[in-house]
């Protein structure tokens, strides 16, 4: 089973970025992706309901993550709880750089992290070459909430890859996802923390599945390791059959 843990769905106004459920399904079928973790684009007008409708229509293909920001209205906690319990979402997506906070500011985002701990929801968090999204900031949250799984989206992209791997080595609850990151980073991650904590992510529509699949194919030659990266780990984390 191939599971891709990073895909955006939505047709937000104010940006050229969009991806409908049907567009994503066509891409998944073309690349033989069985299941995709889906969540909104990170812009301020993010629409979790759009994603919920897609998940309801295609429960066998889509796994919902709820996009959340600490600066949502006072119903933040109710919103996350609603999607995770009523809509069957399986995790939370955080984008500190887009929403103006840092994951190290647990005074700001601690409420979300505590709820993820209570609901046993993994967090996919954007990391990259940005001051509001460094891997070290993730390590502060990961150490404060050791029973929450943090998946570092992009694994620090390019220049922060090394830090992402370092953080994963120190924090057993941190997983690495390398969408649009450097190929060498996948090798580095598997060598440092083992294939059991590395996940396939494509960040569609930013990247094509074919590119990320090929990257895993050549950087993870061992078939057992590769099947973990391509789906085994995600199935375990997300409770998929």
């Amino acid at each position: 089973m191939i599971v891709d843990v990073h895909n955006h769905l939505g047709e937000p106004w104010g940006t050229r970025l969009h991806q409908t459920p049907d567009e994503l399904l066509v891409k998944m079928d073309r690349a033989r992706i069985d299941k995709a973790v889906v969540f909104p684009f990170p812009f301020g007008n993010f629409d979790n309901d759009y994603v919920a409708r897609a998940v309801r229509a295609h429960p066998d293909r889509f796994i919902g993550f709820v996009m959340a920001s600490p600066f949502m209205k006072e119903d933040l906690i109710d919103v996350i709880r609603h999607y995770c319990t009523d809509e069957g979402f399986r995790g939370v997506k955080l984008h500190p750089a887009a929403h103006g906070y840092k994951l190290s500011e647990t005074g700001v985002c601690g409420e979300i992290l505590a709820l993820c701990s209570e609901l046993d929801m993994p967090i996919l968090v954007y990391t990259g070459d940005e001051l509001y999204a460094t891997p070290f900031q993730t390590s502060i949250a990961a150490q404060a909430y050791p029973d929450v799984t943090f998946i570092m989206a992009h694994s620090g992209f390019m220049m922060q890859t090394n830090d992402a791997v370092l953080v994963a080595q120190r924090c057993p609850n941190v997983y690495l996802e390398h969408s649009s990151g450097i190929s060498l980073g996948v090798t580095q991650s598997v060598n440092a923390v083992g294939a059991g904590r590395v996940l396939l992510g494509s960040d569609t529509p930013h990247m094509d599945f074919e590119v990320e699949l090929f990257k895993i194919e050549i950087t993870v030659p061992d078939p057992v390791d590769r099947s973990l990266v391509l789906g085994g780990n995600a199935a375990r984390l997300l409770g998929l059959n």
Partner: protein
Amino acid sequence: MTIVDAHVHMGKPSRPVFGNAVQYTAEQVLRKMDEAGVDHSVILPIPHVYDNDYVAESARRYPDRLIPWAYVDPWHHPNPRDSFARFAEQGFRGVKFRAVSLRYNLSDHQLLDPILEASRENNLIVSMHTGDDPACTPLQVEEMARTFPDLTILLVHAGFRVLAEEAILVAERCPNIYLDETAGTSWQLRRALEVIGPRRVIYGSDSPFMDTRVELVRFRTAISDPEALELAIGGNILRVLSGRGSEAVAGHGVGREA
């Protein structure tokens, strides 16, 4: 279809770079190129190691395959007229600037203008690392492109994802800016083609950090029109290297004309 990888780092680092002790000799580069079906590669030193002589020497051994580019530390070129003439004599075809590592801004006229003038005089193409720091944004490249309108500038990484739209905007406004899409996303590559067309979009892999084949898959998946693909993965950089302007015919070979 001639395939040119416009961005390959090579050399022997004195110590690990980005946590990886990458050694990449000319022979290793060539093996990787053959495996991926790449005809020619632009080679530049491993970042931070600045061993330009090693690159020049490697290109001299494989003049049909390798196109040498030098790394420039602007703080060490008090007399760029002389030092850049020397780059040209060594066979270098371009120079790369990585402002984020060396603490200057790409908009720094006082520091860079004499150096860019020397690049222009010596027919050296300039490449600007962009997109991951306020020191090297596409708008700063535009400042440079307007100051030197007849200097060919490769905007490397096309602003990465964060400044992708800004990179496309400045390419739209400045005909002397080319988008070197090395290590960018599939989406920004498609968007660039939509806005500025196929003649100023360039394939590069950032090998050995990125994989040559992975980056080719990215281009081949994103570009369905065969003519546009041919330009992006080779034709454009060859035309730029020929120095024959935007409508010149590509595919003339890669060496400096005798």
